[in-house]
C-alpha cells in the first residue's frame, strides 16, 4: 500500500530549495533613466507646506469644514442662550428688576 507524502514535509523541502533561487539581473540603464526623469528630491520648507495647505484642491473642503464648524458653534450658543432666558426673566422678576 502506498502512503501519501506528508504535505508539510514536502513543502519545507520545496521552500529550502526555492531559497537557493537567484533572480535575473535588473535593467540598470532603465532604472537610471527612470530616476533621471523623476523630479529631484528636495526638502520642502515650512513655507511651501503652508502654501500647499491652501492649495486650490483643499480650499473648498477647508471652507466647507470651517463654515460647518461656525454653524455648529453658533447654533449651540443660540440654544444655550435660549435655555437661559426664562431663568434670567425669573431672576429679574424676583429681584424687582435688579440684575
Amino acid at each position, binding site marked *: 500500500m*502506498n502512503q*501519501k*507524502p506528508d*504535505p*508539510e514535509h*514536502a*513543502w519545507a523541502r*520545496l*521552500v529550502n*530549495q*526555492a*531559497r*537557493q*533561487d*537567484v*533572480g*535575473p*539581473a*535588473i*535593467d*540598470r*540603464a*532603465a*532604472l*537610471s*533613466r*527612470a*530616476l*533621471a*526623469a*523623476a523630479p*529631484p*528630491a*528636495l*526638502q*520642502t520648507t515650512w513655507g511651501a507646506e503652508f502654501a500647499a495647505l491652501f492649495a486650490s484642491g483643499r480650499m473648498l473642503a477647508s471652507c466647507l469644514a470651517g463654515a460647518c464648524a461656525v454653524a455648529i458653534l453658533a447654533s449651540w450658543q443660540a440654544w444655550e442662550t435660549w435655555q437661559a432666558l426664562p431663568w434670567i426673566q425669573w431672576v429679574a422678576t424676583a429681584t424687582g428688576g435688579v440684575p
Partner: protein
Amino acid sequence: MKADSAHVPAAAQKSEAPPPGGAIAGVSDEQWAARAREGDRTATEALVDRHQAAVARLLWRFVRSRADLDDLVQETFLRMVRGLPAWTPDRPFGHWLLRIATNVGRDYFRRQSVRRRWLAEPVASAPDQAPPEAIDPGMDPAARAAANEVKHVLAQLPPDDRTLLTLHHLEGWGLAQIASQFGWTLTATKLRAWRARRQLRSLLQSRISYEPET
C-alpha cells in the same frame, strides 16, 4: 513604468554617474542620502548602485518575471527619491530602503489580488500573473522551479498573508522583523502567521489530494 530614454540625454546620464568603486566606498549611506536629499543626482545614483542588488534580491521573492522585477525595483527607488525629504539620519538608510521595498512588494500583491477579484479569474490564468522567467542554464534550474512552485501556491493566499509567508519562507525573516517592517504588533503578526499557515496547510492538503497516488 520604464522611463522614456528620449527625454534624458546620454551625455547627461554619463556625467551624472558616480565615480566607480573605491571613490564612493568611504562615504556612508547616510552621507549620500543627505546629499541626495539636497537634489544631488550623483548621490542618488551612488545609493542605487550600493543597494540595487539587495533590493532586487528581496523583490525577486515577490515576482516571477524579469519585467515585473524591473518595475518593482524602479518603483522602490522612485519612492526612495520621493521619500528622501522625510528621511532622517537617525534611521539606518538600508533598513528604511528595505522597508520601502517590502511595501512595494506588498502593494504589488494587493494590486494582483484586486485585479483577480475584478476579473474573477483563478490564480493560474490571471492576466497579471506573468509567466515564470525562463530558467538560465547557468543557474540552478531545480531552485528556480521550486521557487516558481512556492510562489504559485502562495499566490492563492490573501495579499497580506502572502507577503508575510513570502518573507518568512523565502527570505527567512523572523516574525518580529516582519512586524517591525510593516508597523504591525508582534501579537497581530503571530496571529496572522498562524491563520496564513492554516490556510496554506489546507491548500497543500488539497494539492496532495489532487495528485495521483504513486
